[in-house]
């Protein structure tokens, strides 16, 4: 199987899974921005992506993509270390052309995975998993805006941001920063690996990567920072409704 046995094949797996994950991030970022405009609209999307069979199937598919990307990254790193040999240079100069991110993709990837673990705990565990397992939090499972406020603000939006809210926002920003570096190299590198590059398109892909990555990451950053600073969309109270009161949250009562 050339996708496993050849060096280019293994890179193709990394490229294809990477691009699929970029497309998912594009969808996720677009979805998040809805939370800035309409709380009810955002909750509708969350409900659509709840414990429905297609959402569960897509989640399993996504987990498979991440696992493949991660496993192949480790396989490639182990092979590359072996190819490099044990002998290290006493003096090394990094040429200006060499991006820092390109030489630290594994470290950046590990930061991204760790951040993803926290993100899954904050959102997926309290939303889709709560619905699937019917835990105590099932009443708020599809109330996405509640979970955003709870994570980034820490409590009721009419009260100051809690320390926990600031801490989570800071951690998410570090995570997004690592993701920016990882994606910025990953996108153009994927195109290069797939052979869709050349003397002219290499620079174009690098430019497209930079702009695309920056826009996507900014979309995530804006949502996290806005909710951290106490912003809520105009239909927030309406969206919170009775379920927040039932769960003992103050958000619905302000």
């Amino acid at each position, binding site marked *: 199987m050339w996708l496993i046995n050849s*060096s280019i094949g293994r890179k193709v797996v990394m490229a294809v899974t990477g691009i699929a994950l970029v497309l998912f991030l594009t969808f996720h970022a677009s979805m998040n921005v809805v939370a800035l405009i309409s709380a009810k609209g955002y909750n509708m999307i969350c409900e659509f992506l709840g414990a429905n069979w297609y959402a569960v199937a897509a989640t399993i598919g996504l987990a498979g993509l991440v696992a493949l990307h991660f496993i192949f990254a480790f396989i490639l790193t182990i092979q590359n270390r072996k190819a490099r040999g044990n002998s290290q240079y006493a003096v090394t100069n990094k040429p200006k052309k060499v*991006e820092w991110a390109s030489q630290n993709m594994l470290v950046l990837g590990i930061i991204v995975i760790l951040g993803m673990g926290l993100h899954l705990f904050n959102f997926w565990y309290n939303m889709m998993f709560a619905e699937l397992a019917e835990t105590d939090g099932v009443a708020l499972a599809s109330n996405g805006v509640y979970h955003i406020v709870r994570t980034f603000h820490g409590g009721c939006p009419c009260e100051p941001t809690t320390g926990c809210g600031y801490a989570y926002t800071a951690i998410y920003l570090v995570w997004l920063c690592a993701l920016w570096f990882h994606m910025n190299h990953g996108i153009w590198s994927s195109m290069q690996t797939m052979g869709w590059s050349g003397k002219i398109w290499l620079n174009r892909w690098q430019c497209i990567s930079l702009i695309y990555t920056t826009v996507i990451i900014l979309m995530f950053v804006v949502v996290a920072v806005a909710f951290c600073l106490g912003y809520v969309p105009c239909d927030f109270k309406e969206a919170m409704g009775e379920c927040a009161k039932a769960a003992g949250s103050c958000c619905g009562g302000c």
Partner: protein
Amino acid sequence: MAKNISVTVKFWKQNGPKDKGHFDTHELKNIPDDTSFLEALDIMNEELINEGKEPFVFDHDCREGICGMCSLYINGTPHGKTERGATTCQLYMRKFKDGETIVVEPWRSAGFPVIKDCMVDRTAFDKIMQAGGYTSIRTGQAQDANSILISKEAADEAMDCATCIGCGACVAACKNGSAMLFVSSKVSQFALLPQGQVEGAKRAKAMIAKMDELGFGNCTNTRACEAVCPKCESISNIARLNREFICAKLKD
């Protein structure tokens, strides 16, 4: 006007691939700054022999930047590259400051085992070329000059790819020990021309299989190879090789 400089050369000594190796130092005094770096090493070896020491072993041949034999990693850069398109033999002492310490190391890669000191075994590149870096089709008699139309751009680019001298600086600079820039340049020099395109798919598969078999690493597009290549090969060649290889495999 030439001036004389004195430098300290810190050079790598290693007796074979399994030896641990170590650095030795030697003071080079009053070297004219228009001396080439390899000539300075020749002077150093003369002094070492006169002192009853073993000379420093390093690769060199044409000393005019076309054979690809010189292979030193100087002050953290393959070929001590301070400008585009220069090999070690084209490096001059005027690039160094008076009193500077120059660190000389071999190409460090599992694909290039050390034979002695800074002389490394690069026959792996020959094996990759033997796997497919040629055209074996019967071309018949020499054609009339314009019977096979080739655009100027394609001819120029193929020539640029063919200027790869196989020195191994790309492997030495790559944190993954990947030989993709070399292999892609050699594949491209044929793939860009109609005569080479006939065996393009077979060539790409054979050369990549041999490269993988010899233990070179996977390309992660860091561009370190391109930055240090003495012949300014572009990583667009790597994209072309990827394209050739993927298309060949999809057709199988």
